């Protein structure tokens, strides 16, 4: 009998060991959060998750330094994860009901922000008293706030521009002025000429990513969803229809170099395979990575939709913002954001000079770093230009299902390219979106 009891006890010890081992791993994986046990006192240690070492992490390091000068006691852990990993960890963490292992501050893409804010009520800390939403670009407020409360500190502007290879354009018989303020129809015509003269494609696209469609429709103040952020707006959406038709025209004109992923996209740019890259300003460091092409690039305003009267030469692609999680340490985290990304104009000059990161704090746009010419782009004051375009970006409500609807649209785009009628394709997408998005 003694043996049995001993065995039973040893089982219990083993099980207890297992469970505490499992629990103990969580905070370690997140980079540590000292505030777990003692929730009464103000935590001085915070953890931040973000992606992209060249852009967001570099910006965080500058912010950390700026904050540490004023608050020498604060300990800030910056942890880099891929964006997909952050989304996964947030979803599983928030769903499990335990806040262990979650960061204090997290970067979320604007397209996904409402999904998180609405799916996990009370998971995010209300920053309304800490940052003033009117200090930031107007189009950023929609994604970062919910029910009148400001939850995010707007950051990466995601403003787009058309990166252009001057030499290819000139070989095709155009000047840069010919490409300024054009519409997408003219863009395709120029693309044909460039292809004929230089053999280069005008653009590189990934058929699994409809980023260009998103850019086109937002430039006309339109989105996949109606203004309420819930009702799919695909079948009767004139801007979307026009964008689809232009996409097909581009494909059929044979001026598109297809890529299959991000690394091929970057390779196509750096190898000189394409004449233009219409995309978000966050591509700047990747374009500049190919130093031998210095002086050959310029950045022009994005083309607009030819038939949509609201369309402007400015749009957004994949900007992101900072959010504070509602866990112990939130006070410190909110204070960190308020003092750095929320107000520090001086720090934003630093961000521009050292990282090339364009924020959306209005006051920062007056700084001298904005006017600095960039020799890689032939002395163009690119930040100034981007700042001007940022102010023109139409405000739309991204809602909570951008990527779910986009996957439906990608399929219908393939069907449309293969001969299905445009109205049929969009109304089929509408029907499927209505069944799926609730």
């Amino acid at each position, binding site marked *: 009998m003694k043996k049995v009891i001993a065995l039973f006890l040893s089982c219990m010890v083993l099980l207890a060991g297992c469970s505490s081992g499992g629990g103990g791993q969580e905070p370690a994986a997140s980079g540590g959060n000292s505030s777990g046990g003692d929730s009464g006192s103000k935590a001085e240690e915070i953890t931040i998750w973000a992606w992209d070492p060249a852009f967001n992490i570099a910006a965080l390091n500058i912010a950390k330094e700026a904050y540490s000068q004023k608050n020498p006691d604060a300990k800030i852990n910056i942890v880099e994860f891929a964006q997909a990993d952050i*989304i996964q960890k947030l979803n599983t963490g928030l769903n499990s009901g335990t806040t262990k292992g979650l960061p204090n501050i997290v970067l979320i893409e604007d397209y996904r922000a409402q999904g998180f804010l609405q799916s996990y009520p009370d998971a995010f800390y209300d920053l309304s008293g800490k940052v003033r939403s009117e200090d930031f670009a107007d189009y950023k407020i929609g994604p970062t706030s919910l029910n009148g409360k400001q939850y995010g500190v707007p950051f990466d502007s995601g403003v787009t521009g058309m990166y252009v290879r001057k030499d290819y354009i000139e070989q095709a018989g155009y000047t840069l002025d010919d490409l300024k303020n054009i519409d997408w129809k003219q863009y395709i015509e120029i693309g044909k000429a460039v292809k004929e003269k230089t053999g280069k494609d005008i653009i590189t696209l990934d*058929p*699994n990513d409809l980023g260009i469609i998103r850019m086109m429709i937002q430039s006309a103040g339109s989105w996949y969803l109606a203004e309420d952020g819930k009702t799919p707006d695909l079948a009767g959406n004139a801007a979307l229809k026009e964008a689809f038709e232009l996409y097909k025209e581009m494909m059929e004109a044979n001026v598109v170099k297809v890529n299959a992923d991000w690394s091929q996209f970057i390779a196509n740019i750096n190898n000189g395979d394409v004449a233009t890259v219409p995309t978000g300003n966050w591509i700047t460091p990747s374009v500049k990575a190919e130093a031998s092409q210095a002086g050959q690039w310029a950045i022009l305003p994005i083309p607009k939709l030819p038939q949509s009267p609201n369309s402007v030469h400015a749009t957004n692609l994949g900007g992101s913002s900072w959010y504070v999680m509602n866990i112990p340490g939130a006070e410190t985290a909110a204070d960190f954001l308020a003092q750095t990304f929320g107000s520090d104009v001086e720090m934003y000059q630093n961000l521009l000079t050292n990282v090339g990161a364009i924020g959306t704090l209005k006051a920062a746009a007056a700084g001298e770093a904005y006017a600095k010419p960039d020799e890689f782009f032939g002395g163009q004051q690119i930040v100034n230009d981007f700042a001007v375009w940022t102010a023109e970006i139409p405000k739309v409500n991204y809602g909570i299902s951008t990527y779910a609807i986009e*996957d439906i649209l*990608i399929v219908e785009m393939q069907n449309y390219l293969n001969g299905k009628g445009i109205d049929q394709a969009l109304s089929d997408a509408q029907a499927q979106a209505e069944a*799926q998005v609730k």
Partner: protein
Amino acid sequence: MKADRTGLSIRAKSNLTGWSFILIAVVMIAAFYFYPMVQALILSFKTGTGSNLTYTGGSNYVRLLSDKTFLTSLSNTFIYLIIQVPVMILLALFISVLLNDSKLKFRGFFRTAIFLPCVTSLVAYSVVFKYLFAADGLVNSLLMKLSIIQEPIQWITDPFWAKITIIIAITWRWTGYNMIFYLSALQNIDSSIYEAARIDGASSFKQFTKITVPMLKPIILFTSITSTIGTLQLFDEVMNITKGGPGNATLSISQYIYNLSFKYTADFGYAATVSYSIVVIIVLLSILQFKVAGDKK
């Protein structure tokens, strides 16, 4: 008497000892297998985003039947299953018979070489395949140098070729794994059976179809069931090579579950429903395979 002291009979005591030995395993399996399975089943009756879940009865199951994306992922998975599993099983059988030949030189080398793919990391090999099959990748340039094709094949961005790429990748990865089972089974077949067959004048092909295949039947059943289950759970290759594209042309059920949970706004209830559809399909297919190929007892 001991039994008098503890109040237990010898039989009860030995039962207790037996149970206490398997207690750890029972508790662990209950906690880490059965509990999540039941939770997932409960979850599949809830709808909503993130943590806003409410019970809505069978609405997820109704949605499943009219969900075009689910049907696409289901048909893709079955295309992989119907084409890839038989090809792989036959290939593995063929290779294992060749490598079982005692006259073959460097047998150990060949066996290792063919088995090696299945110990490589799923993600690593997927990434390598993605680069091999890129539009300007090694495969295309090789085929063009050999004048087999004129223009590069869009292996990854064309709906048809993307499926073929996935099939080639999983065949490369798993053939060696199945081959090992056949090899070990082949060694258990008495060589005197083949000797007798040769004396009776049976050709090699006859020996293969009349002796080898029937003797390997239980192993063929085993490998086809495990391959079927593996294919139905296909995720890494699709995720890393094509991301399910172009336009869902290579989307597998597992990847759809991932998309529902993490790529879109999290819908764990519906994702659990789709997961349970795989469970049902695997159970049905396994029963079918047992009925077709299993021993009748």
